[in-house]
């Protein structure tokens, strides 16, 4: 079975697409994002910048304009039917844990996020292959845990596979900011802007999954490279 929205391969019992959040069965959803809790994927993407803003001590609001994603955040736990983990593919399990960590972090529940972080990283370790999107998720998780070196490793590995992939520049910029390497981060922001139009024209599926995050990053990259750093505001 494949997702009608993005084409991802799905388990026969899947109710929502692990990649894009589209509802697979039931039919009452109005749009692809209606499929909560997998809609948390959107929140997760948006949560990244929030998380990093916390970590970097900058403004959480500026450059994190993913309010839509956050608004689509998880329902209260009592309203979410527990998923049947045994029926999930490894990719679904990893994505679910990623979303959970990101959501918890965006809600300021750092203890809970920290609890699930190793599980999420292990879930990605267990994947049959780490594609660019999975490595991006791992890198974001690394950043969430404050591990800039590990995030840089994912950025570099993405760049080796696809030299102009935007996720590589994004992870790189964030990781270098975390290590206070301002010139290095600036170079990564500039590289992102240099390649953004051509890359997004390629319509890679992972870009569609993280469109709000890409837009927010672009806005911030423009500000940073124009000498209008948002930090400290």
């Amino acid at each position, binding site marked *: 079975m494949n997702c009608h929205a993005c084409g991802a391969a799905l388990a026969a019992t899947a109710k929502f697409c692990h990649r894009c959040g589209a509802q697979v069965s039931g039919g009452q959803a109005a749009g692809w994002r209606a499929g909560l809790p997998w809609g948390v994927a959107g929140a997760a993407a948006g949560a990244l910048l929030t998380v990093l803003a916390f970590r970097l001590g900058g403004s959480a609001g500026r450059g994190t304009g993913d309010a839509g994603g956050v608004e689509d955040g998880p329902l209260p736990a009592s309203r979410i039917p527990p998923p049947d983990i045994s029926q999930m593919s490894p990719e679904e399990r990893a994505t679910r844990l990623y979303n959970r960590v990101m959501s918890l972090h965006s809600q300021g529940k750092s203890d809970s996020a920290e609890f699930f972080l190793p599980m999420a990283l292990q879930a990605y*370790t267990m*994947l049959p*292959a780490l594609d660019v999107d999975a490595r991006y998720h791992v890198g974001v998780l690394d950043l969430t845990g404050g591990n800039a070196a590990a995030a840089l490793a994912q950025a570099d*590995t993405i*760049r*080796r596979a696809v030299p102009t992939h935007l996720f590589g520049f994004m992870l790189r910029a964030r990781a270098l900011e975390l290590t206070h*390497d301002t010139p290095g981060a600036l170079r990564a922001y500039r590289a992102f802007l240099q390649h953004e139009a051509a890359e997004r024209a390629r319509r890679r599926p992972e870009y569609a999954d993280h469109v709000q995050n890409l837009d927010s990053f672009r806005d911030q990259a423009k500000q940073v490279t124009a000498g209008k750093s948002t930090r400290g505001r």
Partner: protein
Amino acid sequence: MAAEPPPPRPPLRTIHLAHSPDADDAFMFWALAAGKIDTGGRRYEHELGDIESLNRRALQGELEVTAVSLHAYAYLAQRYALLAHGASFGDRYGPRIVARAPRPADPRAALAESAVRIAVPGELTTAFLGLKLFQPAARYVVVPFDQIEQFVMTGRADAGLLIHEGQLTYADRGLHLWVDLGEWWHVETGLPLPLGGNVVRRDLGQALMRDIARDLKASIQYGLAHRAEALAHARGYSRGLDDAGTDRFVGMYVNDYTVDYGETGRRAVAELLARAHRAGLIPAPVDLTFVAAA
């Protein structure tokens, strides 16, 4: 009066067996692949793949018998048992960290510098685990194992973590040895460094697992007893090594520990995984189960 017909022979059981396309594995599995030993009712279908791919396929339980990194086994122990035969150990040698620049006075400190980036063959390889035990702060980029030397030579990484035949050829390419992780491990522990092993899926059952162990051990022993023939086969997988180099490489990684881990080999595996757990590099202690030929 007509004689009774012989009882029907049980159907052949096909076992999918995967290993990496390198000289030591080719040597070990040659007798099995070439039909040199009696495998009873078992027919082996060989499949070749680089070790990181095999590690990840094993995570999905795809393969009945496969070579894996012992690092990866930390994530596989529930589904697979270790076969007591076919392991690769480096006894005072092992994966090597090489670089364009000459060896610094303190390689461990140099590897902690954020400006130094190391090309590694995969995050589940034992070589990578060894690197993280040696220097947890090492910065890395994942590169297919057979491209690492080129990656370093062309300046895309400062150093490379070499497995397989690259361990013997780096100097020809003008690269410098910084650290031999097998040598370091021996200084640390007094033990050989376990790198790779063969695993068998537990759902095959005890009897079949033991039969497979027996076939594998017989294949290794046959190769050792017919070394010239086995080496001739292995040369096809030695990626740039000449005959002498292939002989040397096979001698390094097909040794007494390969025939059977023995007490020392088992202790080395336990020590490696225990240290990895203590360092937070694997999520849980590993319950080691070895299946040996009866």
